[in-house]
């Protein structure tokens, strides 16, 4: 086997943490350790957000329930959304990317190890600040998009919203730092031979995601600063009742961020799918260029669809029509990807391990969420269904049935690389089936609840026909889902201690992260295989069938 050796390359900064014991976790600038810090932190917040979800479902289990007061209910659904989006899905993806991107492109570390550490700690500070509001006796309770004027001091006079704003600005700053770092790493530190068209698709998707972060998060931060100014300095930006401020301006700013945000949470999932599906179908991905290209199309279009969140505002008809068309257009590149994955699986030698199970469920559930999404792009349907449980069902199919399932596929796939041990397959199957049943039970009925008129964000509902039964089904589903999540967490813990030893490349995968030991040494690689195609390890193992015909060699004994 031919392998190119790597000259020892000086890291930008010397490691600061030799012999510090567990304190090293606080001073580390190693991308793998920072990745793990992100992942562990987001798993903690996942627990918090999950408990909030269960509280919501307990309150809604039966009509006219009084488990939570309306005030508490508002705070809990606001914090559930905020936590899951900003403190779970985003940092989980960024953490995994932090760990994997340098490995996948064959680099020693990221471009800015200290910026990377700063990004994590500022993000964590933001997460803590949002919840610090608890000590003032109030939590943010204006919903995750904090519409003005509800979020203004006149209507939310307690400090919860202020903590929410400051915390989000901080997580935003941290996230932008992480994005700059990932981009510079991908642009500058790819292994010799790794051209753009040989880059793993997860890296492609993280690159596009990082660009979206750069251009979506700063507008959010600008808007948050204006909102904070309104609340604390009595500025006039979004206060419609005084001298010309505009509440609709907040909606524009928020959704200019908010819709790209959906793709910040979806593109990394697409990237994980594009790594997992081919490996477990034993085929190269069908249409590599289309997966990368449609990702770029999604990234660009994501900035041109934000008004579809505002159809009910009463903007002009041409405006609604234009954004309706753009929103439907974005279904095209997304649909392309669905075909890429299904055609990759088609006639593949499928290996039904847990990662592929989650990936398969992702495709089906994400398509359901995508179809309801296209429905919402039609203005009249939006007018009928906006702010109903149909919306709740739609975005949970995208973000839980989609992003979270892809994340689980990715976790089962890369856990052996990170820990050196495989996750337990039997527990994994229990986790998978309970998650599929629990998830669909929780959220499918919410489509129907929305269609028959149940509004979202109400703390309780009268005993109308069907309401009680369907809400009870949803609540039972949520608890089944909770059991699935507990099994997953348990699997993470027991496999760490007792899992089967994985070896370097337990799945016979093809990308560079599998060319090093599990877990990788601090400097990542002893040797790098040559990169002549998107599947360097496949070329190495089968030089006679190398993906790039130029480098095919006769089989050796």
């Amino acid at each position: 086997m031919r392998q190119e050796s790597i000259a020892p390359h000086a890291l930008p900064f010397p490691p600061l943490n030799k012999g510090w014991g567990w304190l090293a976790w606080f001073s580390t600038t190693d991308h793998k350790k920072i990745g793990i810090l992100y992942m562990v932190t987001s798993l903690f917040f996942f627990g918090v957000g999950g408990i909030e979800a269960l509280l919501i479902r307990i309150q809604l289990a039966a009509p006219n329930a009084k488990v939570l007061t309306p005030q508490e209910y508002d705070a809990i659904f606001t914090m559930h959304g905020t936590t899951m989006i900003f403190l779970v899905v985003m940092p989980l993806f960024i953490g995994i990317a932090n760990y994997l991107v340098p490995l996948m492109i064959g680099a020693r570390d990221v471009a800015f190890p200290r910026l990377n550490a700063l990004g994590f700690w500022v993000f964590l500070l933001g997460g803590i600040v949002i919840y610090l509001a608890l000590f003032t006796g109030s939590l943010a309770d204006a919903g995750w998009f904090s519409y003005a004027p509800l979020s203004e001091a006149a209507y939310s006079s307690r400090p919860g919203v202020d903590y929410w704003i400051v915390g989000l600005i901080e997580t935003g700053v941290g996230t932008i730092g992480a994005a700059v770092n990932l981009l510079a790493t991908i642009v500058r530190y790819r292994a010799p031979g790794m051209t753009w068209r040989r880059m793993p698709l997860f890296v492609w998707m993280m690159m596009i995601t990082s660009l979206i972060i750069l251009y979506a998060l700063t507008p959010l931060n600008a808007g948050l600063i204006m909102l904070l100014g309104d609340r604390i300095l009595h500025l006039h930006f979004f206060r419609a009742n005084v001298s010309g401020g505009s509440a609709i301006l907040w909606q524009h700013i928020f959704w200019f961020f908010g819709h790209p945000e959906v793709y910040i949470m979806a593109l990394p999932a697409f990237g994980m799918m594009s790594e997992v599906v081919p490996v477990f179908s034993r085929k190269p991905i069908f249409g590599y260029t289309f997966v990368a290209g449609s990702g770029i199309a999604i990234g660009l279009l994501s900035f041109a669809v934000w008004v579809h969140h505002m159809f009910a505002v009463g903007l002009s008809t041409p405006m609604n029509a234009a954004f309706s068309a753009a929103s439907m257009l974005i279904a095209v590149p997304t649909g392309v990807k669905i075909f890429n994955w299904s055609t990759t699986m088609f006639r593949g030698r499928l290996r039904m391990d847990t990662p592929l199970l989650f990936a398969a469920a992702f495709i089906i559930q994400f398509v359901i969420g995508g179809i309801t999404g296209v429905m919402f792009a039609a203005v009249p349907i939006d007018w009928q269904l906006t702010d109903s449980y149909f919306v709740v069902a739609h975005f949970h199919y995208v973000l839980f049935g989609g992003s979270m399932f892809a994340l689980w596929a990715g976790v089962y796939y890369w856990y052996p690389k990170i820990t050196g041990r495989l996750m337990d397959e039997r527990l994994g199957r229990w986790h998978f089936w309970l998650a599929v049943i629990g998830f669909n039970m929780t959220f499918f009925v919410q489509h129907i609840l929305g269609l028959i008129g149940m509004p979202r964000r109400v703390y309780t509902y009268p005993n109308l026909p069907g309401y009680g039964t369907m809400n009870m089904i949803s609540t039972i589903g949520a608890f089944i889902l909770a059991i699935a999540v507990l099994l997953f967490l348990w699997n993470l813990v027991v496999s760490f201690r007792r899992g089967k030893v994985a070896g370097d490349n337990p799945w016979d995968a093809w990308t560079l992260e599998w060319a090093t030991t599990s877990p990788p040494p601090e400097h990542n690689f002893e040797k790098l295989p040559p990169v002549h195609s998107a599947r360097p390890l496949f070329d190495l193992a089968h030089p006679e069938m190398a993906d790039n015909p130029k480098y095919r060699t006769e089989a050796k004994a």
Partner: protein
Amino acid sequence: MTTANSTAKTGTTMNRHKIGMLFFISSEIFFFLTLLSSYAYLSGAFGNLPRESLAVPRTFLFSLFLFSSSLTIWFAERAFHRGRHAAFRGWMLATIALGLVFLTGQAIEYTELIRTGITLNYDVFSSAFFTLTGFHGLHVITGLIMLGSLTGLSFAGKLGPENESAVATISYYWHFVDAVWVAVFTVAYLIFI
């Protein structure tokens, strides 16, 4: 034999600092675009206040100082590349001075507005105006701190050819701050007045 972090044929020849700074600046552009478009969006409610209270010719004069600082920092960079450290320090000091003159102009503008009672939270115009120009001012101050550090290091003899990317990235940032003011001045002093 190749190094793991070498550029080979795949990477660009720019180093990580320049790439990082350019990505960061591109992100900052969207921060200012948001402030600028909010200013434009709200301008319908401004009435005659901007016309009556903003001193356009004077601000234009002070803007010229900031615009010309892009030129002086370019001279500074050129001197740095040619190893003329004294000239480098001179042009850097000139850049800093021009930046300070610009800030003085902004301070005069603010003082006059506040004296006539147009404070930060007077109305929707003052909110938008002070936020937009204030954040630009903060960026100028940040730039001045960076320029000052660089000049200080040079005087201390601690700035060698190996720090080329520090000089380059700070210069990128300064050009950016300058360019933002072109947009801010156009929007706040020329279009929506």
